[in-house]
């Protein structure tokens, strides 16, 4: 089983549009949407949900007003600045339970936290696992790990060969969780100062976690000089550029129609993405 994760550092470079095309191009695969903050892949794959599960993770402190003597010790000791006026901020509480342990009158209890949902669905391109983290929740990394675990299980059960993961932007918790142990990271970038800067950081993350990476420059013709710079940088650090996709308004039109670009259009961007997938297949094939 091979797992390809699509990442970018910078958001909005085209991860989901490309992952959606891979869903249409790859055979015997399971799709995993690991952008649990703002999952969008289902907007292209039109899934029918088969299973919906709650995601319980961590705890949140709760102060019982009738017991609380307002001594203020919890507020003083909380390192996350999560307690004000004897009330807990759900957004800031990190669930450490310190306050519950030190409250002299046992007014603080730790309550289990329902942090989101995850779904298994069917699409015309095969199974999709995705999730929705609740607003202001932490532990996105754990939910990502759960999505990947479910995707792996389905892949094994069906005897499939490939998992394609649409990853989150950034370099923090959910990205690390999407990346660790994957077989290949496809880093989608764009030829802008931000794209270059963020690509360099996400390449470092791949290094750090020992995951081989390859790069795709999306909308390369918006700024060909910056695109060549990216190619030079990749050559310097020994990373292959597996694809260069031209700016093509068909990409937006395909999104507006809710279908993967390669199913919608046969223009220049669609052609390049087909070639990109062939290159990725070569990179993950055993020989």
């Amino acid at each position, binding site marked *: 089983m091979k797992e390809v994760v699509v990442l*970018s*550092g*910078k*958001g*909005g*470079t085209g991860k989901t549009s490309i992952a959606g095309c891979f869903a249409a191009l790859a055979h015997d695969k399971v799709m995993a949407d690991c952008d*649990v*903050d*703002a999952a*969008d892949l289902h*907007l292209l794959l039109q899934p029918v949900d088969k299973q919906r599960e709650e995601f319980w993770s961590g*705890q949140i402190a709760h102060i019982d007003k009738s017991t609380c003597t307002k001594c203020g010790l919890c507020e003083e*000791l909380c*390192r*996350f*600045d999560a307690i004000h006026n004897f009330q807990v*901020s759900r*957004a*800031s509480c*990190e669930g*450490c*339970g*310190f306050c519950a*342990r*030190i409250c002299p009158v046992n007014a603080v209890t730790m309550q289990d936290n329902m942090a989101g949902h995850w779904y298994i669905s069917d699409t015309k391109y095969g199974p999709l696992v995705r999730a929705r*983290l609740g*607003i*202001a*929740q*932490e532990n*996105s*990394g754990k939910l990502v790990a759960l999505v990947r675990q479910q995707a792996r299980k389905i892949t094994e059960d069906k005897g499939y060969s490939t998992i394609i993961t649409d990853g*989150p*932007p*950034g*370099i*923090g*918790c959910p990205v*690390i969780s999407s990346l660790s142990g994957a077989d290949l990271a496809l880093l989608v970038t*764009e*030829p*802008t*100062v*931000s*794209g270059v*800067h*963020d690509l360099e*950081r996400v390449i*470092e*993350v791949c290094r*750090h*976690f020992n995951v081989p990476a390859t790069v795709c420059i999306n909308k390369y013709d*918006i*700024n060909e000089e*910056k695109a060549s710079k990216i190619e030079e940088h990749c050559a310097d650090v020994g990373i292959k550029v597996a694809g260069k996709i031209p*700016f093509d308004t068909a990409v*937006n039109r395909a*999104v*507006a129609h*809710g279908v993967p670009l390669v199913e919608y259009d046969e223009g220049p961007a669609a052609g390049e993405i087909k070639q990109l997938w062939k290159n990725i297949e070569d990179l993950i094939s055993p020989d």
Partner: protein
Amino acid sequence: MIISIASGKGGTGKTLVATSLAISVSAKEKVQLLDCDVEEPNDHLFLRPVITTSETVSIPIPKVDYAKCNFCGECARVCAYKAIAVVPGSVLVFDQLCHGCGACSYLCPENAIYEEGREMGVVESGNAGDIEFVQGRLTVGEAMAVPVIRRVKTKINRDKLAILDISPGTSCPVVEAIENSDYCLLVTEPTPFGLHDLELAVETVRQLGIPCGVIVNRAVSGETLVHEYCIREGIPVLLDIPLDRGIAHLYSEGVTLAEGIPQWQDAFTNVYTEIKEALHERSRCA
């Protein structure tokens, strides 16, 4: 006043809006720009600030004084993150799992735990022309952005207009950054992805009780998806920035819209005026 620039979806133009708004308003008022997207901070690429101070952000993690420790295991029991394991003759601390809550050191019966800082990132401050500039930068390989964001936010000066550039998403780092803002500008694009993620972002700011307005970036005439949603929800659309190769090229070179096409400065100044009026109206009604 604190204005946060956010979006559910990444790459919709938060950096473009934050930097151009800062430049436009700084002609008349004192402005701070704080880049809270500590995973991928980009504002510096456009404002090219002179950084004058840099401070390390660390969280306190436990160290064991073996002269005092009797391996009772209380520290491991009180750790909610399973960051400590006590085995005969040794206490193992898994630094990456520790949130630095301090429970273990406080609750150790032998007072055998002291704390040392573990570096998570840096906060850099300086100036870009008249704009006071602050940014956080998470160390590559670190998972927890929140401590770095918290430190950036300690630099907020309420006597100035503080513009916060937020990371994409709706989870804890985003909420940590937006909390206590007076207003949230949500930047989106007129696609189904943009709309879907805008809905999530609106839900987030409403939960926090922060008033919001929308800027539609890469607007295309006839693509009215986002505008229709905003009318339904009673959210003002404060500005449309058209899908335009010239604007995209400026961005790609690291030139702000307010400097590349100075006529845009009026548009951003107007956005600020509308926000001030909306907040004034709100406080009058309250």
